[in-house]
């Protein structure tokens, strides 16, 4: 029974890991950009959700109605106004810009929110559902997993079934051919960053409910997102889900002492043996 509990916990944890990585994998796959500020975007999402939920007296989940559009627009503006310009010089300067951005954002959050720990309060924080003797599922984990899965499914359907989604995939495949089809590549990049930030807003909301966070927490989530991207394959949305589950299981099986270590060893192994990840071709 204990083994099943561990597996359930690992899978549920994997959901949020996948959500943390999905925005990053989009940027890798489509814009070919390593966004080192992704962790800070997640933490900004966490702060926005916590503040809004507390000010309006609503469940943090409802805050994504506001945070997702805001983060989407900010992402589009950031890509169109800054990163697209730098990318004309090359991918390395763009990488450095995102690194600088991560430092600026972390420091700005420290100034605005102080170094105090934050966490969104939800009534189902400690609630659980008993499914068998000695087998419980945390209500919060289940909700977070559902949100993660729903986000990834919606994103996959959007990319597969809509004109805009197809244009994003086409740009990732062949930039010149995409522009010959009428795709404005710079606008597509801006939309991709907008989507990445929108997913970071949702991930941040989940983080704020599940864990304590600080202005400096972005680095940890960036590493998790990296792990997901490396294992799942750059640009692969289904790969993101599977990689999230693998990392989640590794983390839970390894426990507090070895969880992180196993996750990073896995990441290094994938880089050495299958650097394209599980699903990327």
């Amino acid at each position: 029974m204990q083994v099943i509990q561990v597996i359930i916990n690992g899978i549920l944890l994997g959901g949020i890991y996948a959500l943390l990585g999905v925005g990053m994998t989009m940027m890798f796959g489509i814009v070919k950009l390593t966004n080192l500020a992704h962790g800070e975007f997640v933490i900004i999402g966490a702060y926005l959700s916590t503040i809004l939920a507390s000010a309006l007296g609503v469940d943090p989940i409802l805050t994504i109605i506001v945070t997702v559009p805001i983060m989407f627009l900010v992402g589009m503006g950031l890509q169109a106004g800054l990163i697209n310009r730098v990318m004309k010089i090359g991918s390395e300067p763009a990488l450095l810009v995102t690194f600088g951005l991560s430092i600026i954002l972390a420091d700005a959050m420290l100034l605005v929110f102080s170094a105090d720990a934050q966490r969104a309060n939800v009534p189902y924080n400690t609630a659980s559902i008993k499914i068998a003797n000695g087998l419980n599922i945390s209500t919060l984990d289940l909700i977070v997993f559902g949100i993660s899965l729903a986000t990834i499914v919606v994103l996959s359907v959007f990319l597969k079934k809509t004109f805009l989604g197809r244009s994003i995939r086409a740009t990732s495949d062949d930039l010149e051919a995409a522009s010959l089809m009428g795709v404005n590549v710079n606008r597509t990049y801006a939309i991709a960053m907008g989507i990445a930030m929108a997913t970071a807003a949702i991930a941040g909301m989940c983080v704020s409910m599940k864990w304590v966070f600080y202005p400096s927490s972005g680095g940890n989530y960036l590493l998790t997102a990296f792990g997901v991207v490396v294992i799942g394959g750059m640009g692969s949305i289904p790969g993101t889900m599977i990689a999230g589950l693998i990392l989640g299981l590794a983390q839970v099986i390894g426990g507090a002492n070895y969880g992180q270590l196993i996750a990073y060893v896995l990441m290094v192994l994938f880089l050495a043996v299958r650097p394209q990840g599980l699903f990327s071709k």
Partner: protein
Amino acid sequence: MSEPMLKIEGVQAKYGDFIAVADASLEVPEGKIVSLIGSNGAGKSTLMSTVAGLHKPSAGKIYFKGEDITGLSADKIVTRGLSLVLQGSHCFVRMTVEDNLIMGCFPKHVRKQTKDSLERIYDLFPVLKEKRNDLAGSLSGGQRHMVAIGRALMSNPEMVLFDEVSLGLAPNTIKGIYSRIKEIHKQGTTILLVEQDTHRAIKTAEIVDVMLKGKVVLTGSPKELSEDEIKKAYFGI
């Protein structure tokens, strides 16, 4: 005489300091099929990329249907009814054949016609209908060319530029693709065909342009031009 559909006037295109197209001028009358031939490195593909908006010209003017399109980006030019089929097919290899074709209807004003255009392209290339759910990356070279051509035709362009569609294909496949190009032309589409296969280009075209060292050095109908004249222009002798 009516205005040509495409008019290129003294276009120059560079890669850094290297001048790929020096001073190219040519005209493509409406409804005609024009072949642009020339040896490797003559600047044909760069000229096509420049006309389609993938490459910015450093000098000269390009007019399409009488409007100045010089320096416009590719995504804007295609909405005006000018499509380019790139050399080497350039399919979206991780997308299905049908998704590749649907991308041809990406410009907003043609999205409504997606279903009809798909049927039209499947009639033109029946094999693509059979393979509609396969990834483009899993197709043979010839089939990929068909996808690229079909995709360019989805938006019903008034003019199509074909950049060396025969490159790397088996003779039978080339024959099949050329018969489709003639069919497309019969339906009223103006065509500019870039080819290295001189014989095929001359046989197909109503007007032949020969390019040498970045310039168009000879123009005429295949009937007017002698084989010797074309050879001399082609090799610069």
